[in-house]
């Protein structure tokens, strides 16, 4: 569950086929990194690349400054050569063990105190929670 399979980026032929399917051209673009934010510029249009759960920033960083092939529909970037994506974890209603990572105790204690101050949690329950942790 913790290991996410990276789906390889599209090949040139796949890019061409996808562009044909969508009825748009494959364009040349350039990837840039500005203060940990990632962009692809096609012509005069600069669009943010949403790195995070789906697109690994490491892959995007490796492309910085290089020309890439881009498929865009309207303002949406559909595909960029060299960027694969990882399917997100699926947990739905099931909390899988890999997903349970805990909260720093000092932060938890602060929030707990706030809940006591707001009279949502009683001091008695606060004590039991602190003792139970």
């Amino acid at each position, binding site marked *: 569950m913790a290991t996410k399979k990276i789906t390889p980026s599209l090949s040139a032929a796949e890019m061409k086929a996808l562009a044909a399917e969508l009825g748009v051209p494959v364009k040349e673009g350039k990837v840039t990194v500005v203060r940990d934010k990632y962009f692809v510029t096609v012509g005069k249009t600069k669009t943010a690349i*949403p790195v*995070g*759960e789906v697109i690994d920033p490491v892959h995007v960083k490796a492309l910085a400054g290089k020309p890439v092939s881009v498929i865009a529909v309207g303002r949406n970037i559909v595909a960029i050569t060299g960027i694969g994506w990882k399917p997100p974890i*699926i947990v739905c209603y099931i909390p899988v*063990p890999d997903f349970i990572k805990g909260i720093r105790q000092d932060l938890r204690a602060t929030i707990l105190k706030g809940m006591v101050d707001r009279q949502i949690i009683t001091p008695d329950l606060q004590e039991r929670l602190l003792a139970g942790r």
Partner: protein
Amino acid sequence: MTPHEYLVVEVTEACPHACVHCYNYWRENRAPVLAPDTLRRKDIRGLIRKIRKEAPLKVVALSGGEPLLRPDIAGICTDLMSDGLNVAVITSGALLTPARAARFPAGTTFEITLFGADAALHDRIVGRAGAFGRVINGAVSAVEHGCSVVASVVLNRMNAGHTRDALELGIALGADAFLLNRMNFSRLTLPQANRLGPTVEQLKDALAAAEAVAVEFEASISVSIPIPPCVVDPAPYSHLHFGWCPRGGAQAYYTLSHNGLLRPCNHSSFVLGDLREKRFEELVNSREAAAFWAPVPNECQTCAHPLRDVCLGGCPAASDECYGTRERVDPLVQLARQEAACLS
């Protein structure tokens, strides 16, 4: 062999609550805790052992209804944990008294549903006075007993503005991970969708609140009921884990009904077959299962969003329950369109 690691077991259809957004297809039945056809403790252990001969099962979620209504629920949990499985009990938490909690093996995970930090709001959503106080006490009992707590925040139109409060309450109560699930629609809730379903703006605000909590507390928050990107694009919420329907794949969570019937997931009333009579592999690799997962709504075929191939139209079970077909896109999309039409 099949690749499946997760399973939901609905140990009873009975529930003392009447949540306004409940998707269970039997919600209008007043089901007894133990019906004549309800699987007994030894049956549940036997069927899960049978599945493990054909699948590398790792996690079993005991759900319902309200699983804590069963007097033997701690025993069921002990059986499964003794067999080397991770067990999560999906519960409202309201019945988790210190005495009940003490019967469970330490290390049990309790997934407890929170709607905010407002007692009146919580009680109104679940339809029972005093429920909020019992849930708080329940979570404390679980923590005292050395169990893990996962907070499941379910969003509807009434509580979507309380997301941060709900997550912070979960943190205060000792939760180690969080699910942030928008309500899912069913045949019974769809007619009230305009009153019950969260609006697009509410969803965006709720996700922004959750993103802030994920950053500030390094909290693991999973948005697991699919929110199609044509309703809200997940890109700005990079610290949240967005889940998509696994459509029968390795991460699917087939669901065992209280009576031994196997279904594609907990949202669906579709029955693949009787696990007491057929093998797990036979049921999940059946033509019926393939046909259940296959349809992708026509309009999604031309979607240009990068997440198209994981979204595939949202929750097919919700479409099936609401419209009687999986060829239609998730009802949330329809709701968002209606909302947009009203605003324009």
